[in-house]
């Protein structure tokens, strides 16, 4: 059986092996290229697989097959989609602001690839080991709203304008709970460097890892993180910017052909990036879930967890209807924000209390009380209640 470490470091050693052949003068350039190239290849391929996975998953949820005609079990469907979007005519509305209309998908794509620099995909497999990795991630994440608004505004279409307004409002208001729920982890790990965070979670007590998700405040933080991640990437219960049934397709209504496909690529890459961060912060990055499984290479664990989160996104998309704009904003500011602050308090309590049951009880108590109060607030504000019905003979 191959020695675990060798397989784990296969890509790192491959890179050094290729570096050996490059002439010394351009060696730093080649090394940068060799780290960027796999990211540019692996994640678009993952995007292709996810589209098939999504359509087959949604299909099976709805008791039907998914695409199964192109290739074996529909595997080549993304090739067909790519070909279709390439050959489709690229229509630009006459009254559109052409340059901004053209730049919007490119800005979205550039911004979508940047966050992968700080994601530790495997043991010392990270593009840029920045000390403020998480800070860099959130700073870059904020630019995608710009491209969405560029698309909405430049198409000069009423529906796309509505979609763009919604997108900007939603992304900004869900940026706050996203940050706050990750603050608890940064506080516990004591560093913004993603590799340090992963190393902090690397140890095992018994067969269970030291993942933050296994602590009460960590689990609540993870749930909050994933809800705001769904909102950040405009996915299902929060897909108001592209509310097909209301404003037809939101900001990318006037895009067709390859630009339309670029928007989708950008959205999926954003989803992978933010799930990657979620894995790094809460699910122990590339760490193995159980102590006796560490022989499996680290990067396989990263992609396995990524696959798990993607299935979660698809599952939620297949089930839930869409929220309304004001409910979305209320939920962000009046439920998620206070909840995130309570998580920070609970993480603090966890940090300074001695080990053992009391620590568990107190932090879960914080969370339970906060959840009860805030949930009742949501229900009374939306006036939702179970109803009984009378019958006339």
């Amino acid at each position, binding site marked *: 059986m191959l020695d675990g470490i060798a397989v784990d470091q296969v890509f790192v050693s491959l890179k050094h092996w290729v570096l050996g052949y490059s002439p010394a003068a351009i060696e730093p350039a080649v090394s940068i290229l060799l780290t960027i190239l796999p990211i540019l290849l692996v994640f678009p391929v993952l995007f292709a697989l996810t589209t098939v996975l999504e359509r087959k998953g*949604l299909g099976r*949820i*709805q*008791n*039907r097959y998914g695409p199964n005609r192109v290739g074996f079990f529909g595997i080549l469907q993304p090739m067909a989609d790519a070909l279709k979007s390439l050959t489709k005519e690229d229509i630009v509305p006459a009254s559109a602001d052409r340059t901004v209309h053209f730049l919007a998908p490119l800005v979205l794509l550039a911004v979508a690839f940047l966050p992968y620099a700080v994601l530790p995909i495997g043991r010392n497999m990270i593009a840029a080991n920045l000390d403020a990795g998480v800070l860099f991630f959130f700073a870059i994440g904020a630019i995608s709203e710009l491209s969405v608004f560029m698309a909405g505004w430049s198409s000069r279409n*009423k*529906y796309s304008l*509505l979609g763009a307004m919604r997108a900007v409002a939603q992304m900004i208001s869900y940026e706050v709970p996203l940050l706050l729920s990750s603050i608890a982890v940064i506080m516990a790990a004591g560093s913004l460097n993603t590799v340090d965070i992963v190393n902090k979670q690397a140890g095992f007590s018994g067969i269970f890892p030291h993942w933050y998700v296994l602590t009460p405040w960590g689990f609540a933080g993870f749930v909050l993180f994933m809800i705001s991640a769904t909102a950040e990437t405009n996915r*299902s*219960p929060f*897909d*108001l910017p592209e*509310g*097909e*049934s*209301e*404003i*037809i397709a939101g900001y990318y209504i006037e895009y067709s052909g390859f630009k339309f496909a670029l928007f989708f690529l950008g959205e999926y890459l954003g989803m992978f990036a933010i799930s990657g961060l979620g894995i790094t912060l809460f699910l122990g990055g590339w760490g193995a879930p159980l102590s006796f499984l560490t022989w499996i290479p680290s990067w396989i664990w990263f992609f396995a967890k990524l696959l798990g989160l993607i299935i979660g996104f698809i599952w939620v*998309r*297949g*089930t*839930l*209807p*869409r*929220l*309304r*704009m*004001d*409910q979305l904003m209320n939920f962000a500011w009046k439920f998620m924000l206070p909840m995130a602050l309570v998580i920070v308090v609970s993480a603090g309590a966890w940090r300074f209390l001695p080990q053992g049951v009391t620590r568990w009880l107190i932090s879960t108590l914080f969370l339970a009380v906060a959840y009860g109060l805030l949930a009742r607030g949501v*229900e009374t504000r*939306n*006036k*939702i*209640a*179970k*109803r009984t*019905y*009378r*019958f*006339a*003979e």
Partner: protein
Amino acid sequence: MSQVAEDIMEISMGPQHPSTHGVFRMDVRLEGERVLRLKPVFGYLHRNHEKIAENASYLAAIPYTDRLDYLCSMTNNWGYALAVEKLAGLAVPERAEYIRVIVAELTRLQNHAGMVGFLLQDMGASGTPLMYAFTQREKVLDLFEELSGARMMCNYMRFGGVRVDCSPEWLRQTAALVAAFGGFLDEFEQLLTGNEILMARTQGVGVLPQELAINAGVTGPGLRASGVNYDLRKVDRYGIYERFQFRVPLGEHGDVFDRYMMRVLEMRESVKILEQALRDIPSGPVMDPKAKVRGLRPKVGEAYARIESPKGELGFYLISDGTPNPYRYRVRPPSLINLTVLEDMCLGQNIADVVVILGSIDIVMGEVDR
């Protein structure tokens, strides 16, 4: 589109819009996302069904009634057949009455299931409730195809009975479907009724007060959701509905959630009716022997008959002048009249609710535009 003030936006929702349930247009004046004014525009699917029926014989009008509310062709046929039977004074044999109740309640099941599926589709659930509803609808349509020859354009009822008798095998399949339908409804309610997002999106949205509902002539589940006890199966007692025990669900708030629950609870009542009808359906002829197939010439006079179609009160008003063609043929379209209150319900709500409110009224453009 006139730009009245800078922040007022006039948009036209439809006639080509994913959730206007057909070619229906709404001129909506928005301030941000809030609706200030909403004028419905009709006529895109207008074929002048009434003129066609006035130039054709009584029998030839029946296949056209399939195309009125093209989701419930059986109840349309029944409404028209009932009107002509009232006009010409024809009797309907027992077995035919039972078959009419069975197929009408089957139509109600598939229409209400479809309506809930479309309503959730408008709310953004990406097709899952719609697919579950349509799986059941397919089973009902297969039964219609087995019985009348066509899934949606059944052309099944005649004056004085029904065209073809149903075989015992067909009755067994119907009983199997009805038995399984309760299970489907439980699964459907578990997916939807408790869902907080659904409750948030529909409770308190598009409220229709009781007086306005009566005054504006809203009929069907929309009216009963506002708490008015008016179900034609109980009021007019047409056909043989008084032989079956079933209850009429009534709502209190008259909002979109109540209209959704009306459909679900009415489906449960229809299952009860179907069980009783399938249990005691007699044998015998299905067509009044002396009723002539063609060349019906009712005496001079007029008649107005109405039935409880899944959309509301579907009425047929016929004036005969003794010739084989009806002199005046008028359809009272529940979908069109239920739309009278669309603007009243949408004022002040925002644009995402307009789509949901329209979905909760459950219109079919074939019936609105005729």
